[in-house]
């Protein structure tokens, strides 16, 4: 597995897109800090970008890599290697290289602008951890879609739809629910609803660590009570972990039966 991981990782590291992705974050980090010069504020702006863009890039990269390296994968499958090892190697290769681009791309400008002297270091590391989680989650989800769809175009379509659903449509349904069932106590419901969407969960996790938390009023109080404690933090991290583990598990189950 390690060999395949290494191969996928080096393959991706050599590819142009990894550099583009890395450079994008690097430039973004520098521009943000150049315009703002305030690490705290830059973290807020960055959050908006990370929770939308990281899942999208993860999804596209995952699907693209699967379909592009399909022939090589088939060649590997002919060798006496465990199937799940091949795919886990590929999966980890993509996720790690994407995470590396994110962490280095954003880390370098922030460190240069004096992150270590700033109080934002905790928020910033939380941002990176959440970004890394989103990478792992969305690459796994997109790999699932690609494995279940033979047709390349269809696979791409489903993957983009999945991203669109979690990033936009889910919130729309959520909001409609809140407005329609206005007269019922909704705090427990909304707490549960955020758990079922990794993007929402990461957004709220970061929002509550930032200053705006007090804005949330009564609902915020319920949320802060939950997420503000170490237990809440652990639970939400656990849920994110579950969001990585479940798709990976399904991937392995699917692999066992799949006919290549």
């Amino acid at each position, binding site marked *: 597995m390690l060999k395949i991981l290494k191969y996928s990782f080096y393959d991706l590291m050599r590819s142009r897109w990894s550099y583009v992705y890395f450079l994008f974050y690097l430039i973004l980090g520098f521009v943000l800090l150049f315009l703002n010069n305030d690490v705290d504020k830059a973290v807020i702006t960055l959050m908006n970008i990370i929770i939308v863009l990281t899942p999208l890039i993860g999804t596209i990269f995952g699907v693209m890599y699967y379909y592009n390296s399909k022939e090589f994968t088939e060649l590997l499958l002919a060798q006496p290697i465990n199937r799940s090892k091949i795919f886990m190697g590929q999966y980890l290769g993509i996720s790690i290289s994407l995470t590396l681009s994110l962490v280095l791309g954003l880390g370098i400008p922030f460190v240069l602008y004096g992150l270590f002297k700033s109080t934002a270091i905790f928020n910033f590391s939380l941002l990176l951890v959440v970004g890394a989680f989103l990478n792992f989650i969305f690459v796994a989800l997109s790999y699932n879609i690609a494995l279940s769809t033979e047709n390349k175009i269809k696979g791409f379509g489903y993957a983009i739809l999945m991203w669109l659903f979690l*990033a936009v449509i889910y919130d729309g349904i959520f909001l409609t629910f809140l407005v329609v069932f206005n007269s019922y106590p909704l705090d427990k419901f909304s707490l549960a609803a955020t758990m079922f969407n990794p993007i929402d969960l990461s957004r709220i996790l970061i929002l509550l660590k930032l200053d705006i938390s007090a804005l*949330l009023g009564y*609902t*915020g109080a319920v949320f802060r009570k939950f997420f503000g404690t170490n237990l809440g933090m652990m639970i939400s991290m656990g849920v994110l972990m579950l969001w990585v583990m479940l798709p990976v598990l399904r991937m392995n189950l699917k692999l066992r039966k799949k006919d290549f």
Partner: protein
Amino acid sequence: MKYKIGLFFFFIAVAVSAKQIVVCESCSVKTIKEAIKMAQAGDEIFIKKGIYFENDILINKPISLIGEKGTLIDGRNKGGMLFLETNNIKIKGLKIINVGLSYTIEYAAIKVIKGNDFIIEECILENVFFGILVEKSKRGIIRNNKISSNRKNEASSGNGIHIWSGEDIKVYNNEMFGLRDGIYFEFVKNSLVHNNVSHNNIRYGLHFMFSNNNVYHHNEFRNNGAGVAVMFSKFTTMHHNKFRLNWGSASYGLLLKEIYDAEIYDNLFEQNTIGINAEGSTRINYKNNTFLRNGWAVKISGACYTNIFTKNDFMNNSLDLAYNSNINDNKFDNNYWSEYTGYDLDKNGIGDVPYRPVKLFSYIVNKTPEALILLRSLFVDIINFSEKVSPVFTPDDLLDNKPLMKRAITNIDTQRND
């Protein structure tokens, strides 16, 4: 001529007759009460340094009470301390600690009852219930005092400077913290509050009730339970104040409730949950204020008419304006909005496209507070955008027709430091 000389001698006689009584442990006069009993009108009582355990000190003659540095009057948590019950009394440089707590009687470190033209200055009042309590008095001056307490809840705490029924009172250069309200005015007219710092109080930094024609300026209110409240008052002027860091689920920089004809200008509202919360406020002019990084910059909750906002800076607030009715009688003109995305083709500094300060999301949040957890979600940005293009839910006449391209107040630091 004879008459003038006579007058001159008369004044000398008065000046000479105003004698000084010194109080200290080794003096002939050992307690403050004793000194007051001996004093004539116009005398000065000088209290030398030392600790005095005295309560209920009644002053009913127009005299001056002056403390040396290091003079401490300890009330041992038993009832009130100084009672000023006549005109022309001056209190200076005393340190009073440990005023008693009561749920029925308003014990105060210094209580003025029907005493006009009083001066209370350079006093340090610590662990008080009420600090300075003034009832039915006119033309007083309260300056350079430091009032503090360490009470935990509203019921067991009193106000720093509490004025009930007064006129022409000046309150300046004081510091208040750890109290219920820093400054509380009820039925006070024509008074001036300036250069005070009121922070970390349990309820309000400053609280006006039924008080007309007052001015407060250059004060700083920070970290208070709920900022500053001005209620049921007319003709109030507020300028050059700083309202900062009032964070909490029910907190705001400034609460306006049932107030009329007020002027609010050159203030700074920074990092409050709600910058200004206005309810039933009419004919108010907001000019040159800076709203910086608040949750809501301004929240207008109904029955607010003819409020005019001009040349204000709305900078990086989560939501600029919340509005709960579809009828709009308030005007926004020539403000700077950091979220404005329009352009200025003729380069006259005024944006060519009107700005809509109320977003669909802030409208939804008003109806369904729980929806706030979707703040900064991509979906919310999308619905805000579509509402901006064609307003359906938000009042369509609520817009800034001449939004500024650059900030109205060029240098925030000068505003902060003046």
